[in-house]
């Protein structure tokens, strides 16, 4: 369903196989032969938020071409590993994007072992987006998949033994971050648009495939291909218009996505109001007051945060509230950081039982047991609200008990009504947000957007092939539609042969 980077580890397999075949390779060897990837990739490799400088990395054979085109280096390339202050321009429009430092790394003396380049540009989102889009417009250059730089470094033998061991975890972390990012991007209008294109393209392919596999024996209406012709043309027009129309791009939801979740009446909306120091959300003692997502932008310790309050999680017969709960769960899945709010007065009075109680509670709030304790514990904070209503002695003993439980996410006692414990909580929250901002992938929607653009462009190119071969060779024309769907599938999810056959059998009576 999600655009994971399958290509990534596949090449890793290729490499591992290579050194297995070599008799000299004993133990877990690092391959020395660099595998040359034909494609050049780029990615934002610095964090965001309060950073003055952003670093964009480029790796692959076209790196020198990229430098020449974007840094106006028509003559010789700069000496390797030497910073040079240049005007960075759009290769097509020649428009000035920024002034910044460029560096050139001649392979194999680079992080990935390939020819590489770095752009150190100003950290504003507009500049970053412009540079990433300019890179994506160059022939043979595309946004990197999750973990791709590391993978190439691995190929080139640039990673140490422990780094190779950690490759799986790294890829997990990066694909997870990309997955969350993609989910956010796909939420809403844009997602519906892409899904609609994908659905229509699947039908086009199914109808072409039906015409190829069955029209000789079956009553496949003659008009089927004509319909496909016009559908494909319509799709091309729509995608092209979308690519050209900058204004219609959705506002990017930048910042660390922090979501407040928990049972009804735990005080989630109070926490939101406390954090943004204004009554942004309605609070009342009535369970189920908040029914939709309440979103607000905050600055926490200088880092941009998008804070969302969600409906209390409970089974409800009210259809509006049920929808609110569904949205709440969806939002939790997309979150970089989830604040799970618990009503302290509901905690077991015996402090020894609290840890187990909280474990159990978390499993009902967080999406899947897999994302529960271990993987997600750095993405979860427990807020034990209404601490003013708990006897101080019980609170202290509970705090002591929880401190010795490394399996649980950090827990903070807090009272939204008296603000007791707020400072401690803010310290913990701020350090989490800071860590998250250092991760180049979380909260860099411009990168996801650049990936989407690249795949949409390739999709349109592939559809051209359909028209080109439509009357000459239907197998090659179909190949164009298949390729377009593969690229679109990188955004909306992979489409297998079985799914196409399902559409064929649904739409046609295949009888022979």
């Amino acid at each position, binding site marked *: 369903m999600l655009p994971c980077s399958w290509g990534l580890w596949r090449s890793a397999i290729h490499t591992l196989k290579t050194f297995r075949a070599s008799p000299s390779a004993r133990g877990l060897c690092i391959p020395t032969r660099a595998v040359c990837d034909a494609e050049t990739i780029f990615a934002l490799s610095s964090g965001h938020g309060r950073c003055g400088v952003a670093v964009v990395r480029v790796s692959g054979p076209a790196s020198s071409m990229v430098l020449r085109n974007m840094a106006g280096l028509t003559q010789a390339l700069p000496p390797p590993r030497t910073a040079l202050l240049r005007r960075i321009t759009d290769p097509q429009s020649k428009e000035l994007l920024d002034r910044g430092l460029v560096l050139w790394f001649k392979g194999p003396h680079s992080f990935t072992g390939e020819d590489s380049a770095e752009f150190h540009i100003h950290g504003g989102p507009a500049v970053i987006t412009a540079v990433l889009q300019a890179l994506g417009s160059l022939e043979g250059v595309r946004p990197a998949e999750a973990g791709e730089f590391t993978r190439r470094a691995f190929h080139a033998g640039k990673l140490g033994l422990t780094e190779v061991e950690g490759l799986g975890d790294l890829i997990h972390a990066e694909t997870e971050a990309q997955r969350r990012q993609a989910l956010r991007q796909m939420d809403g209008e844009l997602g519906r648009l892409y899904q609609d294109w994908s659905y229509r393209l699947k039908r086009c392919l199914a109808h072409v495939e039906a015409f190829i596999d069955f029209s000789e024996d079956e009553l496949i209406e003659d008009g089927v291909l004509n319909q496909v012709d016009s559908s494909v043309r319509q799709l091309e027009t729509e995608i092209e218009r979308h690519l050209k129309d900058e204004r219609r791009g959705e506002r990017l939801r930048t910042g660390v996505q922090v979501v407040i979740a928990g049972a009804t009446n735990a005080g989630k909306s109070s926490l939101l109001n406390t954090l943004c120091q204004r009554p942004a959300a309605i609070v009342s003692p009535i369970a189920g007051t908040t029914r939709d997502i309440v979103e607000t932008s905050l600055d926490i310790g200088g880092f941009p945060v998008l804070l969302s309050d969600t409906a209390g999680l409970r089974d409800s017969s009210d259809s509006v509230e049920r929808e609110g709960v569904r949205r709440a769960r969806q939002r939790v899945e997309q979150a970089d950081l989830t604040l799970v709010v618990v009503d302290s007065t509901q905690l077991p009075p015996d402090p020894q039982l609290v840890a187990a109680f909280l474990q159990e509670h978390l499993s009902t709030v967080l999406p899947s047991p897999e994302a529960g304790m271990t993987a997600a514990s750095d993405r979860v904070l427990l807020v034990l609200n209404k601490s003013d209503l708990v006897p101080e002695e019980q609170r202290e003993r509970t705090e002591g008990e929880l401190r010795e439980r490394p399996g649980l996410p950090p827990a903070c006692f807090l009272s939204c009504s008296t603000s007791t414990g707020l400072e401690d909580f803010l310290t913990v929250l701020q350090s989490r947000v800071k860590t998250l901002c250092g991760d180049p992938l979380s909260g860099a929607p411009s990168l996801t957007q650049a990936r989407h653009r690249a795949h949409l462009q390739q999709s349109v190119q592939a559809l051209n092939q359909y028209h080109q071969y439509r009357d000459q060779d239907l197998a090659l024309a179909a190949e164009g539609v298949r390729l377009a769907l593969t690229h679109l599938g990188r955004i909306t999810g992979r489409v297998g042969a079985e799914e196409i056959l399902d559409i064929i059998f649904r739409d046609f009576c295949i*009888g022979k």
Partner: protein
Amino acid sequence: MLAQKLHLLRHNVLSFVSSRTGSDLTRRQYDVIVVGGGHAGTEAAAAAARLGAETLLITQKIMTIGALSCNPSLGGVGKGQLVREVDALDGLCGRAGDSAGVHFSILNRSKGPAVWGPRAQLDRERYRQFIQSELLSTPRLTVLEGSVDELLVSQPNPEEPGHHRVTGIRLVDGSHPILSSSVVLTTGTFLSGSLFMGQTTSPGGRMGDAQSCAGLSYTLKETLGLRVGRLRTGTPPRIVKESVDLSLAQLQAPDKQPTPFSFLNTHTRCKPEEQLPCYLTHTTPGVERVVRESVHLNCHIQQDAKGPRYCPSIESRVLRFPGRRHQVWLEPEGLTSDLLYPQGLSMTMPPELQLRLLREIPALHRAEIRTPGYGVQYDFVCPTQLTPSLQVKSTQGLFLAGQINGTTGYEEAAAQGLWAGVNAGRTALSLPPMALSRTQSYIGVLIDDLVGRGVTEPYRMFTSRAEFRTYLRPDNADLRLTPRGFEEVGCVTLRRYKKAVSVRDGLQEALMALQSVALSSTRWREKLGNISLSENKSTTLNGLDLLQYKDVSFEMLASAFPECLSQYFEYSQRLKIEAVYRPHCEKQSREMERIRSEESLSLPSDMDYLSLPVSLSQEVREILDRVRPNTLGAATRLPGMTPAGIIHLLNYVLRTGQRNRHTEHRNRSSQKEGEKGQLCASNIPISQ
């Protein structure tokens, strides 16, 4: 007269191996035993024998070896590709089709050579004769008439519970066991088969044949603990030709010049002018009425066993897509047969209603039925329990092929039969098993789909199942498979190999010659007359570039450069096809390489996924434990598998492989299966 003579001849030749007349001639020990004489069984037996294994084919009735039990046709879109590939590996069905065909046509002629579908209507008698005489003249192959009662397997090794080894079979007549290193089961619809017609149900796998395989079913399910599922299929009534008013149907002529299936044949046995036509007609509202009125008398369609979506009975077509006209093809059954086969009218209602239904169709208003249609429900073994060599994972030496694996169709059966026969032979000869890559053949796609994903309905080949359709073409099956079939697999005879190699070399020379003639597009226009070239005037194009253009034929180029091209006239069609597809195949070569490298990494079959000390989620562990993918490639295609999970798995397998010598050895031999499963690039001069 002629038919009678052949019949006598066949009878004489066959009788000497029949168990009834000469059981003392049969040995008690073979390398390979093949059970079943259908499309899968005959290919399996012939392949094992070609490989050099002493092979025994056991069938219920020698006379029905090579019988076409359902439709009298071979090939089609996707299926034709399979026939060409079986032929490229020196199988029987392509040559049998050339011998028995009475109506040849290339389907999809207007849609591009990659999806052309070679197809033929067959003469049932000629097909059977060809297969039977072919088997009887195959060295090292013995045919025995009998029913298998029991599959003999060794007791499982206490250290490896559930792991058996096949030791042979025992016949129903209770005689001594016949021993072998490998057994190929191709029992078709006979595994717990039941026949349906109207409200009556009887045990059996085919009308007119003995029910059987009860003992086999028991061994497979109870002793070996294999999971089985249930599927259904059916066949139409056969109609007396004389009773049909063909003037009310539309005549469908064959191709004027028949194209042989086999790479060895330049022409078919049937002369162009001797070919028979087919006829097309349609269902009427009256047909729908009869179906609706008879539903309550029709057990088969009320059952819940899974039937195919693409070859449904007329009952399910009408019920699923009401109010439509459905096509009915009236196909000849042979040169001398007095019957017609109504393709598209498979039905299971009571015979008197079948007659009523037929007569609702104008051309069939006076039709007489020779044998009524009926339905079959049967068990199949869930094919995810097999390795890519078609061997049962838990039972060394036991191979399954054909409908027993949940497929439908002669071609699908033949393809599996051949590959199971190859591996049964290799196992018996102590050679490592082999797999075919899905990047290299439809047979590879078929087997990979079966063992990797399993089936939920009878599996049939479509070209849309192949990712690399523009490379897996009917025209180049010989280049894709024959050299390796000889050099590595051992199932191809020297004669065929030599022919394929000479074609390969000839094509390569011709391609080089084409590339050597280069002119500017202006000069090309001058030479070839009015052709539309999109390139700039100054661009230099070589002959191969030019051949990609729609309006340019090899003949045109050869007449422009007779001195260097005219000697390659025999390849003109293949060169044109190659020129058009080559750039696309090159674009896909990276993707092909990737899939092949995944396929080549085997996962040990005894891996304990549930306790593997790597970071895998419980869900992923359970999926892996249930499906037990054969290769890393198969693991990636499992729903729910994550990229990180694959990396962890890969690291683990490689690490343990290097630490543990015993494991290393096993890994290597199983890896070999995967590695051998690819053609190396040097074997593919074209398209790579």
